[in-house]
């Protein structure tokens, strides 16, 4: 346990990777989802190609290509940057699919009603479709956040000194593998529980009756004054 401070040195890196990748992945994922749903054929197919490639190949292989492969053609990244890039690009593909599902779950008539008022397509997407779609996508997005936090551990293979990397070092030096990795597992667990709790609260906070929940659940959890 004397090694705990050393172990915890890896935590900021793990959290940094998680937050940057989830944010960058969200921004890119949103563009991909919009491109896939609303883009002209060429754009739509390009987005699909991206999604297929990044979801269809192992994350570890993607990281290896970026970190070990690209230097062959003169593109060199530091381990941390390579990890950030790989995780972000990969997460973008998954987040794009969650977002696409949510966007397509919004009835087409919502868009038509917006256009009828004189909104442009873009305005309708931004003010009518996305506010609803994003709310619906929160549970899936929460999953992605937790997955991502855990999958950042894979970056030990490209020499990023994250939580798992520190643990590996300490365990090797002290030969206390079981103890060390149990502590590491516990740390990951604490963060996943914390994150899902936070996202859960955010979801409740932005919840709107009739958007993204079945009426039964709405009735049970919220006191709605029906037909006042």
């Amino acid at each position, binding site marked *: 346990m004397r090694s705990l401070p050393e172990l915890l040195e890896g935590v900021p890196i793990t959290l940094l990777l998680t937050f940057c990748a989830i944010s960058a992945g969200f921004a890119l994922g949103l563009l991909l989802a919009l491109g896939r749903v609303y883009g002209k054929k060429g754009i739509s197919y390009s987005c699909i190609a991206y999604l297929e490639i990044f979801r269809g190949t192992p994350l570890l292989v993607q990281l290896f290509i970026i970190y070990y492969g690209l230097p062959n053609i003169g593109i060199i990244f530091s381990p941390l940057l390579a990890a950030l890039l790989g995780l972000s690009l990969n997460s973008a593909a998954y987040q794009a699919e969650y977002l696409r599902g949510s966007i397509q779950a919004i009835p087409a008539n919502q868009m038509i009603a917006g256009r*009828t008022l004189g909104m442009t397509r873009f305005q309708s997407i931004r*003010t009518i479709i996305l506010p609803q779609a994003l709310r619906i996508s929160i549970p899936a997005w929460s999953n992605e956040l937790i997955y991502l936090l855990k999958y950042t551990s894979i970056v030990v293979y490209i020499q990023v000194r994250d939580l798992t990397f520190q643990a590996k070092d300490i365990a090797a030096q002290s030969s206390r593998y079981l103890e060390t990795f149990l502590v590491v597992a516990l740390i990951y667990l604490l963060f996943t529980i914390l994150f899902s709790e936070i996202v859960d609260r955010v979801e409740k906070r932005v919840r709107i009756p009739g*958007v993204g929940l079945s009426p039964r659940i709405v009735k049970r959890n919220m006191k709605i004054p029906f037909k006042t």
Partner: protein
Amino acid sequence: MHMLEVVDIYKSYGSCEVLKGLSFTVDKDETKVIIGTSGTGKSTLLKCINQLDPPDKGEVWLEGEDITNPSIDLNRIRQKIGFVFQDFNLFNHLTALQNVSIGLEKVKKIEKENAREKALEELRRVGLEKQSCQYPAQLSGGQKQRVGIARALAMDPAIILFDEPTSALDPELIGDVLDVMKNLAGKVAMLIVTHEMGFARNVADEIIFMEGGTIIESGPPEQMFNNPKKERTRQFLGRISTLYGKE
């Protein structure tokens, strides 16, 4: 100049010809009601008018402008054509008030404060100022439709198109919506597709009877109900009257 002029429009879906050369006009503050059996292209006609689904042939003129002209800015035109849907299509994530004000804020670029004030005024007009903070899921069908009407009214449209506004409502809720529409008669041009014959008879300036993608007959309610010129009109209205009871 007519407020709305529809000139010989045609519309097909694949090999199915839905509209076969329709022409009519709606003047300022006039109420016209379109009746006819289901599947005769009444809803298609409305979508052809606001260019959600432009006609294949023919012209639509609004306030002296040919809006079927491909170079026209449809987003500007649609502000002037209110649309009330059969299934309401309120924005689910917005309160009643926001549903009415969003068009003012985003399309007409009116300042938020003023837009909300105007929206509240419109909600008052349809008797729903108390529900202004409720979301669509918390409103009854009749209330939703009245918000839908307020949303259309708020944009100060040249004309409002109603696509069977009461067809999705429980019988006891229909009255509230029809009352709101009755109050609008003579204040704004309205083109209403409906099966409410009592309403058509009492409120319409003119009734258009449509079948098979064409206008069979049109005229003032008195003439259409009591003394139709075409045998087919007589048949249709006769059957409707036995179904719904005479007024």
